[in-house]
């Protein structure tokens, strides 16, 4: 064997558990922008799911191979034409939405390919971000540790923004979960106090 040990990022990603809580055992999953494949591997090991990741970055693709998950090299921006309509129980977009150029298009594709979609993203309405903007600087939150000039994150939104987009895309929100910076649930003033947002949604048909 060779030096193929992949450091597990599961300990660093408590948000995985939030997504897993919505996924029933044995489900068929598509994980868009799956990174090194840790989420799919986690879901496979904890929820016995069958699925595929989609990833464009070469290094991430190699990590997926080492993680032993199915991964399809594909540019999300080019759509999901390799995948048949309604062919997945869940299509996941975990902390990738903000880096997608054609946001509306990808949500439409998630609604087409999956029975349900799950999207998580860093909430730009989080109070720390608001404080930084008020103080006159672009925020560099812990969930998006980039400067404004070198960030891959081009479409930042708040909970309210995302919910408005769902409305526009004919998506019905089934469940929402919001976490603070200690990865604890936030129920009171989530758009202000929440750092990470999770949505489960389906097509209104």
């Amino acid at each position, binding site marked *: 064997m060779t030096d193929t040990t992949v450091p597990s990022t599961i300990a660093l990603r408590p948000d995985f558990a939030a997504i897993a809580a919505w996924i029933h055992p044995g489900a068929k999953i598509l994980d868009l922008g799956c990174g090194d494949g840790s989420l799919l591997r986690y879901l496979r090991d904890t929820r016995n799911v069958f699925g*595929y990741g989609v990833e464009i970055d*070469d290094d991430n693709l*190699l990590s997926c*191979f*080492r993680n*032993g998950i*199915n991964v*399809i090299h594909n540019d999300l921006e080019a759509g999901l034409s*390799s995948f048949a309509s309604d062919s997945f129980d869940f299509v996941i977009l975990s902390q990738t939405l903000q880096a997608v150029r054609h946001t509306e298009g990808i949500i439409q594709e998630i609604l087409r390919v999956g029975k349900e979609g799950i999207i998580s993203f860093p909430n730009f309405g989080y109070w720390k971000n608001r404080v930084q903007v008020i103080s006159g600087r672009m925020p560099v939150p812990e969930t998006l540790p980039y400067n404004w000039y070198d960030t891959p994150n081009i479409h930042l939104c708040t909970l309210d923004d995302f919910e408005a987009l769902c409305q526009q895309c004919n998506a019905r929100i089934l469940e929402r979960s919001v976490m603070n910076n200690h990865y604890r649930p936030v129920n009171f003033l989530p758009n202000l106090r929440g750092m990470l947002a999770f949505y489960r949604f389906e097509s209104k048909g």
Partner: protein
Amino acid sequence: MQDSKSVGVVIPQFVQIDKPLQLKSGLSLDSYHLVYETYGQLNAAYSNAVLICHALSGNHHVAGVYAENEKSIGWWDNMVGPGKPIDTNRFFVIGVNNPGGCHGSTGPASVDPHTGKHYGAGFPVVTVEDWVEAQAQLAEHLGIEQFAAVVGGSLGGMQAMQWTLDYPEKVRHALVIAAAPKLTAQNIAFNDVARQAIMTDQEFYGGNFYAYDTLPRRGLRLARMLGHITYLSDDSMAAKFGRSLRNGELSFGFDVEFEIESYLRYQGDKFADLFDANSYLLMTKALDYFDPAAAYNGDLSAAFRVAKANFLVISFTSDWRFSPERSREIVKALLNNELNVSYAEITSSYGHDSFLMTTPYYHQLVRAYMDNISI
């Protein structure tokens, strides 16, 4: 100098198969022989066998070197060996020359036992399905009931796919590299120009040139030159040769002037001495005929319904003969059948021949995939 990651000196082996090979064309070969090589050790459970399928002009000599010729390194030696991506410390790797070939297995240059003469033009047309059947006979001879993986690039990738359709229980993993679910019209056109070059050579004698003690060298040379161009990319040719002149200045004539001309003629000549013209015709025809979806009204997903293997599909960005789009068709059909599949599109400037190159990222991917195969 001996490469420490080489399988070392290898010796081809030979098996005579007296069970008739029923061919897709309706004809059959009553008996035939296959030449093959093996690298690594078959484990006690017989669960670590990997079959390597060769491409158009390939053969059984995948890795290692022959004792009598230190330059005779196997065609995929960079991929197969101890510690290499297809690790012979772990896997028992088999290379086999297909029937119709010209490197030891029964082919047009063999003597037909019925006539006592070379088969020549009388050798039946063989298909990818026929090769899989012959390879299955070899597996039976070796006592292998299931391959850990069947691996191939280009025409070899087509064989790997066909294995999963004809013997779904006998393949755990299929590595389909730089392949396509069927040739395009443009590809068939290239193949026919190559065949016409051979068949219109005055020394072809309708395929029976053996009887005239000659070879259609000019035709075979042209066929190979054409093929070679299509396996490279414009970028790789530009990088390697550009418009460099052999003698530094234009001579305003038709002799070799540009380096690329010199290179292609050299490759063509070398090939014409090594490869049998009838085998080249047969191999290109096998490529043309391959189309597993044909029996399902062109529905490739329907063709793969029987498959059970796990798949790795790899394509290369500069491969215009078997482009990434063609590999995506395969991937889509596998996805539609909920099969385990991973797909990688590798950035490479070497064209179709990329699958033979030692591109580090490509080799890392194959290594990672192979390492995860349980044996």
